[in-house]
């Protein structure tokens, strides 16, 4: 099977409001795809459509080689073999850990094995309210994995955790998924989360997928300015392209476009060289402990930021030369 999930041109409407429109993407077996986008972009709707909690209005969804949603067919959630981890974990409050994890699966051994997998052996008799947030999350994951589903879906699984826990838990969950070779689709608005653990990321807005790619490509070559800004810090300089190049205060860059363009640069790829003859002026800087963000006004008046190490300190008014690497150029 080449794809664990294939979503083809799926549309879902709520009255006059579009939930998702013409949505298409695929997920390879054993890999993690994250749907990334701001609130209301339709990512949760897409997830619920795959799970079977919503009926689609058009298109089709195929899971594990079998069509589960389509114009003629809607397989109910309990028949889909799709496990789901909810944002609020949805652990059954009247059952202990063993009962929760074993709810969809048979046999104590399987439960024990899963608890071991998620590192919660020894907490079998606890009730959900007696567990920490991170522990609850792992129980939810174990429970979803227990019936050996074809796919695991997770809706903002880390957003309820303390920021300090998040990174560690993310890594652990990713490891568990890889160890069990589980296909997964996550949903989040946190681009750091999406980029750090996914094989592929689908950026969504207004019910549509704007770009699907692995994190590195996505980050380096965002398909449009909005995606660029959503994935990370980005500054835009206007310029005019002609004869295969555009001339900007940051340098001359090759491009196939012609006419007015915007050049996107990321602050972490901008370098500053102090020089009394420099054509840019430091306007200010913000100190972040591990780095600093220096704002610079270029000749021509445009502003750009540079994320640099904490040494040297750039006082406002210092003249600098500005260089940028890896820009992406868009038409205006």
């Amino acid at each position, binding site marked *: 099977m080449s794809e664990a999930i294939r979503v083809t041109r799926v549309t879902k409407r709520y009255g006059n409001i579009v939930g998702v429109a013409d949505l298409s993407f695929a997920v390879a077996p054993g890999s993690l795809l994250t749907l990334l986008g701001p609130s209301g972009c339709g990512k949760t709707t897409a997830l619920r459509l795959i799970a079977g909690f919503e009926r689609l209005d058009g298109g089709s969804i195929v899971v594990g080689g079998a069509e589960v949603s389509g114009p003629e067919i809607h397989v109910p959630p309990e028949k889909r073999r799709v496990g789901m981890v909810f944002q609020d974990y949805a652990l059954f*409050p009247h059952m202990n850990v063993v009962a929760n994890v074993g*709810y969809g699966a048979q046999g104590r051994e399987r439960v024990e094995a899963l608890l071991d997998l998620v590192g919660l052996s020894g907490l079998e008799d606890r009730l959900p309210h007696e567990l920490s947030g991170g522990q609850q999350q792992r129980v939810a994951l174990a429970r979803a994995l227990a019936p050996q589903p074809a796919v695991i879906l997770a809706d903002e699984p880390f957003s309820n955790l303390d920021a300090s826990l998040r990174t560690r838990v993310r890594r652990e969950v990713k490891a568990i998924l890889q160890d069990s070779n589980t296909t997964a689709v996550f949903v989040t608005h946190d681009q750091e989360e999406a980029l750090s653990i996914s094989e592929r990321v689908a950026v969504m807005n207004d019910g549509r997928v704007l770009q699907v790619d692995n994190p590195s490509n996505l980050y380096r070559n965002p398909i449009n300015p909005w995606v660029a800004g959503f994935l990370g810090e980005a500054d835009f300089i206007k310029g005019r392209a002609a004869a295969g190049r555009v001339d900007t205060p940051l340098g001359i860059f090759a491009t196939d476009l012609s006419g007015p363009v915007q050049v996107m640069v990321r602050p972490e790829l901008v370098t500053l060289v102090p020089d009394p003859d420099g054509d840019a002026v430091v306007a200010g800087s913000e100190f972040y402990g591990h780095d600093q963000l220096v704002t610079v006004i270029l000749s021509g008046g445009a502003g750009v930021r540079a994320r640099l190490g904490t040494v040297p300190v750039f006082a406002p008014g210092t003249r600098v030369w500005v260089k940028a690497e890896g820009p992406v150029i868009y038409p205006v």
Partner: protein
Amino acid sequence: MTAVAPPITAAPPGRRLPRAPAGLVAAAVLVIGPLTLPVIYLMVEAVRGGGGSTVLPAGRLVELTVNTLALVAGVVVASTGIGLGTAWLTTRTDLTGARVWWTLAGLPLVIPSFVGALVLLGATGRQGILSRLGETIGLGPLPIPRGYVGALFALTMFTFPYVHLMATPALRRLDPGLEEVARGLGASPGRVFRTVTMPQIAPALRAAMLLVALYTLADFGAVSLLGYDTFTRAIFLQYAGRLDRTPATVLAALLVVIALVLIWWERRSRGRTVIPGGRTIRPHHRMPLTRRKRWLATGFLGLVVVASLVLPITVLVGWWLRGVAAGQAPVAILAETWRSLAVSGATALIVAAAALPVAILTVRYRSRVGAWCESAAWSLYALPHLTIGLAVLLVGLTVVTPLYQTLSLLLFAYLIMFLPQALGPTQAGLARVSPSLEEASRSLGKTAFATARRITVPLVGRGMLAGAGLVFLTTMKELPATLLLRPTEFETLAVRIWSTTSEGFYTRAAVAALVLLAVSAIPLYLLVARNAHE
């Protein structure tokens, strides 16, 4: 606790409720549908027979309407004033013994209005206990407060607990931050109360006031005993005093219309009230009282408790002892007690089960039929019990004749009258259960039915139990429908109190009343005490 209209919940944010499965809709319709039939039949019969001139002269109808509305208005104002006062003093001030006062103020719920009226009759008049006491101080005997004053007192004293209990959670949920901001901006405590506090508790107050209004509208026992001519009293007099049942039917239909108008008007002015789901993060600030205010507050609370609890129990016990001293044989009411318990328990159970499909349908799914079922149920709840009793009697005599004078017919009437009492808490309990729990169960392979059984019902269990407890209490106190529909020789405690009172045997009535109070007090205390922790 005692809502009188469905709690409307907002759908989980960003999600529209799914369409309802046909099986669930059918179950809900099967529950609610038959409940509406008797009243519809009543209205049809009333229209058919209503042309006759034998009903009542128009002037009398106007008089009845004015009397009824005047009583409703008076009781609503008085009980709201008292109930809000007791709730405020016991939840928002640092009065000593606030918890005890709070519980005491909720207990009078256990006393049915007709027992309250009975107590009034026994406390006043030349032989009344209060008169005797007054004589020792040198005051003259108290006149029996028949008519408006008596009915107002009897009803207010035993309905203000509704306001007290329903205002309490709203007062507890007040955000102290808002009041602090207002004070910081220079507003006096009075202004803070009017402009910041009142609007926040207004929805709860409005629901309580509607409940009190409907209760007063429906009251039959108290106004009969005290001789105040309201619609319900007139209906019963027509029923009991004439061979032709048509006048009673027509008047009942008119009363149904008045009640429906009242609730539709309230619904329209309500807008969408969302169940507050959040929890207060900070414990609310209790206002400190000056010494003088402390005395005033204690005095007020003391007066209320004396009038609504101490006085009734004293009068009843006094009557009982007087009878014992006069050598009367001990009253045998074991059979009636057992019957009351059994029939109330049965009703509570049936109602709780019947309410569940309707609750699930209206909270978890989007269904127009579900919304109608809910409206129908709440409208029926608002109707006076006498009219429901009459309607079911009509149906029993003409349509389902094998059920005439059977317990099943009586239980059917109880179901009509009390379903929403269980529906409300069940809906509220269900709304507190996140739908993602049910979705999780389905994603783990369980069908919708299995999910309801293993997840929904156990979690809603406490809400259902609260609803069942409430129904149990109300059924114990029910009088007019039971009078009309009971099988021969099937007397409940309430009926026994009523029949012995009509014959003037106050001692026997007192014993039955004391037993009724005792038996009702335990579930009431549990319900009230449970709400204290909410």
